């Protein structure tokens, strides 16, 4: 398989486009807010004080840097390349999402916004946002599909315990897509005093770029840690992709390197089953939630319902940068099914004593496919993006 290496990767352009994807497809009312955000973010990203405060919180409060763990039993099990796990499951709140929530809340405070809204699917971003809001004493409203509130009840309780208001969304499929619609409607209505903390590399510019940059610390640390341990770069990088934030976080610092990068989508019951969330595998470009990207939609352009056992991947769109990396073939996107993900949960739990989130388990499931093709001289790094406690109810139904 060929790997195209670009030495001049500089996406997105000034209009927020990654090739043909991205942009700002929002009502006029949000344009001033996006422009204000763009300016504030630019200023913050050039301000060493902002950077220091962000890094200090990630260290003292989130617990970064997270470990890069050698998975010896998993490595022995497959008998191929060495497998390292980037342990985002060890972040405070149990997933990578907090990196971005901390970054955005600092920006919100800098901009003088006193009311925070967020959407959530699996509840990990909702929990991360509720956590950041509790830490800074800011009002927090989280929109969550009613179906997801059932699937991820533990996270609903966690958010409420930390003082966030969780608003159930009963429109459409009652999942992440609809929660995002509702959060955008809230933002359009309360645009003056409200900051919308988007939880993935989706939405209108500058969100996909900004969220990526708040998560690139995952890849930056990985690179440094692996250099310390092995003195070289990995051969393979793997991460699961729903909207794509943990994936872009670990991929981005390696974009210009000679590393084979693989993103794993949620195949649901199978990519040909019609019950899937494999957007890049089955989707066609279109516009949803403010940006142009691959989407699951029918002949009439109506958005189709995604399906995945994992609430965090159950989304009919994907971040525009992933669409671009897919088209340019810089990243190889594949899909695994619900059943494969569940098997991976058991395997990792037994072999490594790590119960991964169902989202994360999708990346692990690809090892079945990849590892037989690797040799013991090679190195695989997998982003262990979150822990599985929140999924215990779903998982135990299949045990």
């Amino acid at each position: 398989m060929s790997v195209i290496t670009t030495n001049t990767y500089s996406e997105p352009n000034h209009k927020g486009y990654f090739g043909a994807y991205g942009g700002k497809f929002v009502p006029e009312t949000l344009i001033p807010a996006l422009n204000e955000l763009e300016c504030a973010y630019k200023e913050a990203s050039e301000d060493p004080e902002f950077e220091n405060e962000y890094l200090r919180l990630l260290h003292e409060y989130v617990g970064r840097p997270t470990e890069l763990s050698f998975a010896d039993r998993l490595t022995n099990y497959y008998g191929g390349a060495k497998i390292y796990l980037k342990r985002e499951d060890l972040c405070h709140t149990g997933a990578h999402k907090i990196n971005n929530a901390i970054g955005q809340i600092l920006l919100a405070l800098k901009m003088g916004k006193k009311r925070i809204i967020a959407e959530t699917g699996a509840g990990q971003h909702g929990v991360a946002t509720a956590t950041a809001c509790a830490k800074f004493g800011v009002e927090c409203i989280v929109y969550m599909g009613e179906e997801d509130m059932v699937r991820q009840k533990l996270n609903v309780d966690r958010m409420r315990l930390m003082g966030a208001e969780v608003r159930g969304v009963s429109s459409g499929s009652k999942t992440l897509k609809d929660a995002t619609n509702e959060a955008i409607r809230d933002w359009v209505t309360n645009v003056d005093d409200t900051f919308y903390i988007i939880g993935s590399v989706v939405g209108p510019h500058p969100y996909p770029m900004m969220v990526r940059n708040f998560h690139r610390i995952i890849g930056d640390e990985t690179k440094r840690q692996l250099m310390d341990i092995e003195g070289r770069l990995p051969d393979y990088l793997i991460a699961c992709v729903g909207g794509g934030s943990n994936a872009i976080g670990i991929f981005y610092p390696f974009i210009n390197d000679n590393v084979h990068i693989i993103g794993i989508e949620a195949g649901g019951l199978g990519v040909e089953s019609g019950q899937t969330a494999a957007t890049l595998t089955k989707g066609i470009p279109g516009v949803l939630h403010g940006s142009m990207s691959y989407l699951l939609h029918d002949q009439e352009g109506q958005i189709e319902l995604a399906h995945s056992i994992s609430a965090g991947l159950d989304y009919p769109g994907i971040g525009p940068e992933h669409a671009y990396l897919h088209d340019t073939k810089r990243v190889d996107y594949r899909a695994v099914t619900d059943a494969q993900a569940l098997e991976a949960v058991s395997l990792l739990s037994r072999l490594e004593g790590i119960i991964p989130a169902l989202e994360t388990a999708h990346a692990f499931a690809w090892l079945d496919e990849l590892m037989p093709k690797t040799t013991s001289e090679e190195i695989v790094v997998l982003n262990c993006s979150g822990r599985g406690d929140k999924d215990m109810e779903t998982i135990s139904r299949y045990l």
Partner: protein
Amino acid sequence: MNRINKVFEQKKDEKVMSLFITAGYPDINETVDLILGFERNGADIIELGMPFSDPLADGPTIQYSSNMAISNGVTIQGIFGMVAETRKNSEIPIILMGYINPILRFGLGEFFSSAAKAGVDGLIVPDLPLDEATMIEEFAHTHEIQLIYLIAPNTSDERMQLSDDKSNGFVYCVSVTGVTGARDGSEVQQSVDTFIQRSKANITKNPLMVGFGIKNYNDAQSISKEVDGFIVGSALIETIKNAYPNEHWKEEVFNFVHQLKFGYPNQ
């Protein structure tokens, strides 16, 4: 002259009334009849909504009518058919209003040529701001479909002027920052006056229509006092929702329309 411009030429002494309905709601076979009835009862312009599964600029009422219309099986091709059918009996300006994704999926070239052929006069795309609209401008120009842009209370003077420059037909003043939906009259009125003054100062080329939150004749008259006309959508759809499918539902709806324009019922 385009039908939209003609209406503003002819109705200089009254408030132009534009009515929004979702195509295919409450039933695919009623849309043409509703349009013709609206015209008989005082509507000057029709905004025909092309439903989308994820209407993020719309409140609960238009979310509801959109979902119903999609369940009823409405398609873009079907909507062009409705416009063509209306054109057999009416020259009322028809503006299509819908989100960009279904339009892109239909194909931009095909969409604009079919729209023109059916007798569509204009297009409003709420999630396609000026910055992104360059992708449709040439098609619209070629097929003589007028593009209407929205301005909101938080739109800068500079962007208002740009909207005026890019719009044809009229400029759509969104009276409040928020999604579509009927609101308490006072809520709209408070902030709208300064916004309208600023809009009038910046919009010099096009007529100005104000919409969002208008639910009756009094709202309409007071909010549009300083502009060329007003737009009603959600309140009309609410009326349909409450009346349909009672025996005389259509008369009730047409009465509401007449009242909205003239301040008294048609009987």
